[in-house]
């Protein structure tokens, strides 16, 4: 030992075995000046203020998002609220099987549109998720160097194709193919719209899923591979579980994309206002109905207002999906 034993012995009195009442409160003020550098701790310097201002600025960004969402909601609600509260029979609206707003008396049963949306979105996800996850795993875990770059560029290009082009593909390409392959009369149906929407959603899911995989630290892969795990075992046991929140988010954004898509689905689905019973039935979605009918409904009429109630419904469903997803992601994090 190099230290001076006298110095050592000056410590606080040894702690007795029985607990002692906690001693002095704040130190007397004369001590404050003892460490000269310590005045900086009481001083809000430039860094501190800058931090404060920057924090407010980004808070402003966050609040503006809330503001926009709120404003949109208020607008949609204001157009349809009167009708929704006073004239609309919600039971008929949610469970009625006939959407006939232009005949006398009009029927406002939105079930065909809700079911159409669900069917088409469901088919789209069944197609998109395996495709997209496959692509993401290949790009993220197996492809190397140039090949990887090219694949990523291609997929981003795919995401940039305008939706009306996808609609034309549905009308001109998919329709005869479906008629031929499955031997059905109607080529514009749930399957057609689902495939088109699935192909539209897949690039987005792929991009986000690939980001989630890339965010898994390389050390995890190394640690698992050092145990003799095969590439696939590493992916299955380590990478995918760790990336799960990100992957869920990817699927959710995909669903959102499929859900909100309008023009392509209007062109490919056949837009038949009845509940589909199989993937070969034509169907109509909420979004396509709004797009198709809003132009011909007189401003302020019942028909006009009920279309806005449809908008509210869409808003509500999207909100519900996002909340659920958030809840799933949060639950996983806190358990991890």
């Amino acid at each position, binding site marked *: *030992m190099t230290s001076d*034993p006298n110095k*050592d012995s000056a410590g606080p009195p*040894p*702690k007795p*075995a029985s607990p002692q009442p906690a*001693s002095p409160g704040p*130190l007397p003020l004369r001590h404050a000046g003892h460490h000269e*550098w310590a005045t900086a701790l009481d001083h809000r310097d430039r860094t501190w203020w800058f931090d404060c201002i920057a924090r407010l600025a980004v808070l402003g960004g966050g609040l503006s998002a809330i503001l926009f969402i709120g404003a949109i909601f208020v607008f949609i609600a204001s157009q349809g609220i009167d009708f929704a509260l006073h004239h609309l029979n919600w039971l008929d609206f949610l469970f009625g099987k006939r959407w006939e707003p232009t005949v006398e008396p009009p029927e406002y049963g939105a079930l065909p549109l809700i079911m159409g949306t669900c069917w088409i979105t469901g088919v789209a996800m069944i197609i998109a998720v395996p495709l997209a996850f496959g692509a993401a795993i290949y790009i993220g875990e197996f492809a190397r160097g140039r090949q990887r770059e090219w694949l990523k560029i291609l997929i981003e290009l795919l995401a940039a194709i305008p939706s009306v082009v996808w609609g034309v593909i549905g009308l001109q390409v998919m329709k005869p193919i479906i008629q031929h392959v499955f031997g059905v009369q109607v080529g514009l149906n749930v399957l057609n719209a689902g495939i088109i929407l699935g192909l539209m959603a897949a690039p987005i899911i792929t991009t986000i899923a690939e980001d989630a995989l890339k965010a898994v630290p390389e050390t995890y892969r190394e640690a698992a591979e050092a145990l003799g795990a095969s590439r696939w075992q590493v992916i299955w046991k380590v990478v995918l579980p760790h990336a799960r929140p990100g992957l869920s988010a990817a699927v959710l954004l995909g669903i959102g994309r499929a859900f909100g898509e309008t023009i392509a689905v209007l062109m490919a689905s056949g837009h038949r206002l009845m509940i589909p019973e199989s993937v070969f039935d034509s169907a109509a979605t909420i979004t396509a109905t709004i797009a198709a009918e809003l132009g011909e409904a007189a401003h302020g009429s019942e028909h006009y207002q009920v279309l806005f109630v449809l908008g509210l419904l869409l808003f509500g469903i999207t909100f519900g999906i996002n909340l659920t997803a958030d809840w799933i992601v949060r639950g996983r994090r*806190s358990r991890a």
Partner: protein
Amino acid sequence: MVTEPPPLVSVRGLSIHYGDKVALQGVDLDIKTNEIFGIIGPANAGKTSFLRALNRMDEFVPGMQVLGDITFAGRDVRTVRNLYALRKRIGVVFPLPVGLPLSIYDNVALSPRLSGITKHAQLDEIVERCLRRAALWDEVKDRLKGLGSLLSGGQQQRLTIARALSQDPELLLLDEFSIAVDPVTTMRIEEVLKELRQELTIVLVTNLVQQARRLADRTSFFLGGLCVEIAPTEALFSGGAREQSTVDYLEGRFG
């Protein structure tokens, strides 16, 4: 001086919880200016948790709750006006190296730059001094622009130490700093730590009982969330421990 100078750090009634789990309970201690304060104790004793509370790292740990009073240079760390200034004064080294994705030079120059130092000559001098102190200078002086993350594990740990020194701390918290460093280099760093005692105060958490014996002025023994005893190191190691559990631990009978 007639009166005892005030302690740099003073801890009263410190308890730390993670959710329902109690990691530390009722700790009272003072850390004096320019001493090396050793903390030993088996795994799970709450040593790392203690360090986390000192510079409010608990804010980064979800669920971690700190109760009691901690003052640093007479300021309550919970209510200090300028938290960033507080953290700047407290350097931390974790058990495993945490390299920032920067070059070796930039790793060490980051903190001085954040404090507004821009002159190259001055930065060069700080970087060299800190790297020398961390016993890394000779190995990296020709590759300062290379990525810090490409160094060997032990070198990265020394880079982390150099980085902590570069912020010119008053208090240095070392959490098992030598876990990834080879014994010869560890000895060199230990020599530096002894010299550093002239300039700053060190809290040394270590699993190597002999390291505490070599370096610490006073040593405290933590066990299962309690601070069992605090004593001058020499006294503790030469049979002066009051508690049976301390004696057992020092003699390697459990842990």
